[in-house]
């Protein structure tokens, strides 16, 4: 069943659709939150929050924009960063608009795409990979990364941008 069909089920109040969605994406959401926040209890709270919010507000996910998996993954990351920064959420979930052309609905596709991204990260210059990881999983700003690594701010900015673009291009092939 497609993500859009499952979300339609949630919209109509079908609890089994939510359970199905949970089975499909809870590991990704939990793993991202855990990687950022490093605490199983907090990660579980974020997991609960996100799926409850989707239950309450299924219209926040715009199926025409792409996949639910990447969307949930970004929201999990953002919520976890907000938590470690001890701040209120910076974005409403309906404002998190993202565009991904690759299909992540089937486990096989997820595994294949994941392998390609891991391979791209393995081939990335170490400094670029480090900058991306510090920005994504630790929520460090470009200024903080520049201070930590002793490199020019412009270099860090460019590294983050070109790093993201290279991830995009690896799935475009």
């Amino acid at each position: 069943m497609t993500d859009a069909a499952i979300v339609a089920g949630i919209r109509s109040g079908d609890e089994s659709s939510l359970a199905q969605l949970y089975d499909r994406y809870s590991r990704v959401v939990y793993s991202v939150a855990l990687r950022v926040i490093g605490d199983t209890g907090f990660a579980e709270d974020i997991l609960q929050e996100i799926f409850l919010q989707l239950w309450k507000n299924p219209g926040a996910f715009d199926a025409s924009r792409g996949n639910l998996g990447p969307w949930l993954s970004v929201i999990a990351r953002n919520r976890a960063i907000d938590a470690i920064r001890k701040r209120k959420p910076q974005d409403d979930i309906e404002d998190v608009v993202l565009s991904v052309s690759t299909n992540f609905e089937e486990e096989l596709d997820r595994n294949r795409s994941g392998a390609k991204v891991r391979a791209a990260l393995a081939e990335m210059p170490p400094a670029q990979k480090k900058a991306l990881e510090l920005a994504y999983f630790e929520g460090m700003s470009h200024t903080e990364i520049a201070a930590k690594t002793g490199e020019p701010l412009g270099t860090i900015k460019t590294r983050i941008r070109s790093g993201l673009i290279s991830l995009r291009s690896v799935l475009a092939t």
Partner: protein
Amino acid sequence: MTAHEQFADDLALHSLGLLEGSERVALEQHLATCADCREELAQFRGDSALLGLAFSEGELVAPPASAKQRLMDAVRGTSSGSGSESSGTVQTTAPVSLPRIEQSFTPPIAMPQRSEVIAMRPKPIWFGASGWLAAAAMLVLSGLMWMQNSALRRRIETAADQSAQQEIRLTKAEQLVSVLTAPDAVRATLASTKSKPEPQGKAFYRRDGGQLVFVASNMPALPPNKAFELWLIPDNGAPMNAGVFKTDARGNGTLVKTDLPPGVIAKAFAITVENAEGSPVPTSPIMIVGAAGI
């Protein structure tokens, strides 16, 4: 995509929520009126999502089995999309009843009732004494099956990673060939600023893909711990590091880059001698330079 180049870096940073202060305000004002940049922002968000989806099977962590039950208990009797009050454990630990997460979410790390949250999670069920033997046997059996399963998963992941790496290498090779043969590839011939010896370099560059092949010849011997650094001199702005390379005993060397920031218009290319790990800015005189032209 025709997003504005001057906002390119900021769009990437904003997609990660890293932009602050006046830079963020300026970008958001621009985004309000620029559909292309909004689209590029969505693209960058999609790109960043890939980092979260790159966990291998071995890195993915399943939430506790009780978490699903907590969730289903919390939604039971609550209408989807209603925004009405929910009941259950989660609601009492963090307010989730409002439809917008901004209003309802309390960063868990700031929650003073952390111990309460933990206390409210379902307690483990302890087996009776008579079940210990059966439980121990099950544990051993589960352990063996888990080990077998893990080994198989590792082999599958390794094979998938190797396959993906080969696919990437093939793609890169195809990209390189296309750089050398494309009719729109920029070609630059670099010559010594002095008459002799005559080091030379040829650059083949495609700005759309950020791809570059540079072939050097007759280059002089390098001092210890030094390397040649190629600079892409853009139409607008400071020279950009386009890579570091060393030459063989005959002074020949090749540099291949496929990850330069795309879309940069090259005015010229130049070579300087820098420390072996490269430098963010040129620190020595230009050795050879050449203007870019189709």
